[in-house]
């Protein structure tokens, strides 16, 4: 991992009591912002990233030199229009882009914290990021938004802080991680932990990393982000730079080569222990259980306008699970909109150029911002 010194961050001084019982304090939370906070401070949108994202939602990530993970959605004139809105995005705790995580150096040992890092939850992530409101002196956010694990953070944020966001956009997510979700995450974790370089999580992060395990974890996960139809259309049974099968275990098929490539580039930018911690946080996420089996209670106090979006070909966080959130909100008469966007791009749709999805968000946000201002809600 590169030097994070130049990245923006706040140091959270006051103690944060974690769900696991431990307490952390004086820890860094790295963030990035896009656009400008207006004078009334009523145009801020807090965007939450997914499993392998970071604070660089848009533009170029200065560490990886790659495009921001939500470049299609965040920027001037885009869905989250940074000419109108002030977009804040933080790296979750447990992450590996400058926020407090297992890759952070412990000054007492001069080594990475590794698996001595406490197990964190979505609730912990959200509570840490709440400090950004104080930092920017924002009384109320215009919106909170995110897809996948970002969507889970949206739900948790609104339930923890009922009136701190006027609009909530949970996208392609769930209120309760399913057995299938947990199973896929466990597969990834086992791949990492089976790599002899993992060393019980105490690898040094420089000379030896569990790259092979992390790459396999990424490959497996990547399949779950795409749809069968999407894969078939993009790759089919096409062969990789060869005219016939080679009767061996090289990447004969394009899809094999593609997955191997995805795995190999991932290990350059992501820390294996972070992958363990963040997938664990997702698995532990069960907002329904947090509210005694009644999801509606999570939003009982909220005056937030909800807009929930799912995708037809997303089988990882299917429409049915997104709809459970809609049902819970309707049960308490909350202000809720919901649409399932038609696309073959699978769970990854929320990160991709899906015009229907992006234009609906853009229009929804700009109209709602105007409506709220006119009615002074």
């Amino acid at each position, binding site marked *: 991992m590169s030097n994070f010194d130049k990245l923006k961050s706040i140091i959270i001084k006051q103690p944060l009591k974690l769900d696991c019982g431990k307490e952390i304090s004086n820890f860094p939370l790295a963030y990035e912002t896009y656009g400008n906070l207006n004078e009334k401070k009523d145009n801020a949108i807090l965007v939450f990233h997914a499993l392998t994202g970071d604070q660089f939602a848009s533009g170029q990530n200065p560490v990886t030199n790659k495009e921001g993970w939500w470049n299609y959605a965040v920027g001037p004139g885009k869905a989250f229009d940074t000419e109108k809105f002030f977009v804040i995005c933080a790296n979750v705790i447990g992450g590996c882009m400058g926020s407090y995580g297992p890759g952070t150096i412990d000054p007492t040992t001069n080594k990475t914290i590794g698996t001595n890092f406490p197990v964190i939850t979505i609730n912990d992530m959200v509570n840490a990021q709440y400090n950004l409101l104080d930092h920017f002196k924002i009384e109320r956010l215009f919106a909170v938004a995110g897809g996948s694990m970002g969507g889970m953070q949206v739900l948790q944020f609104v339930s923890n802080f009922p009136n701190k966001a006027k609009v909530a956009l949970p996208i392609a997510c769930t209120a309760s991680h399913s057995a299938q979700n947990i199973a896929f995450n466990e597969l990834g974790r086992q791949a990492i932990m089976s790599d002899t370089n993992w060393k019980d999580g105490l690898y040094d992060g420089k000379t030896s990393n569990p790259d092979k395990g992390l790459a396999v974890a990424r490959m497996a996960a990547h399949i779950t982000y795409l749809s069968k139809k999407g894969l078939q259309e993009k790759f089919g049974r096409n062969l990789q730079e060869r005219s016939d099968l080679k009767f061996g275990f090289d990447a004969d098929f394009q899809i094999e080569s593609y997955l191997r490539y995805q795995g190999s580039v991932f290990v350059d930018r992501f820390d294996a222990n972070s992958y363990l911690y963040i997938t664990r946080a997702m698995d532990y996420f069960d907002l329904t259980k947090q509210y005694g089996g009644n999801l509606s209670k999570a939003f009982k106090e909220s005056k937030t306008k909800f807009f929930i979006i799912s995708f037809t070909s997303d089988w990882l966080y299917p429409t049915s699970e997104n709809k459970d959130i809609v049902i819970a909100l*309707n*049960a308490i008469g909350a202000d*809720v*909109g919901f649409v399932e966007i038609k696309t073959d791009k699978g769970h990854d749709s929320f990160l991709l150029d899906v015009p229907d999805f992006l234009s609906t968000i853009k*229009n929804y946000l700009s109209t709602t911002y105007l409506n709220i201002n006119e009615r002074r809600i």
Partner: protein
Amino acid sequence: MKEEFKVISKLIDERSRVLDVGCGDGILMEYLSKNMVVDVRGLEISKEKVKKCLSNGLAVVEGNAEYDLKQFPDLSFDYVILSQTLQAFMSPENVIKDLLRVGKKVIVTIPNFGHWKIRVDLLFKGEMPITKNLPYEWYNTPNLHMCTIQDFYNFCNNKGINIFKTISLNGQKTSKITASNLKYKNLISELGIFLLEK
């Protein structure tokens, strides 16, 4: 805005909570929320129309009234509106039951199959009628359960549903329908607008 929507909006009190079932492009919703102080939600089956509504900032949920009305609690709305959609459901009876469960009052409008033009078409042409309100061929119509104003009136009476008001709409003309003029209004009305209560 359609005359029908003007009639509907006059039936609604200010400051009430309204659910528009089959809200389409959200034209009525928009009118209600801009011109009257009402809190309005929508349910719509067409993705395209839902996207349009959401783009206009309306609180619309994609769904099918036949299954998705269940998620709304009893009497959670002051008014539930169902405009010209009843005939398209598999089970209009169950939908009406659900509407009356969710809403304190229910406004149902039906395209009247008893209108004289329709009767004449069928009588003289011997073909399924095609009109402005019912523009489909028999083989592609989404309308599974057509009824007349008289039919719906009888249905309500048989099921013990209270009819508060019945309004006839013929072109731009509105008039009251009563028990005594029912037979006549059933002949000349293009639309029937019913205000119901359990």
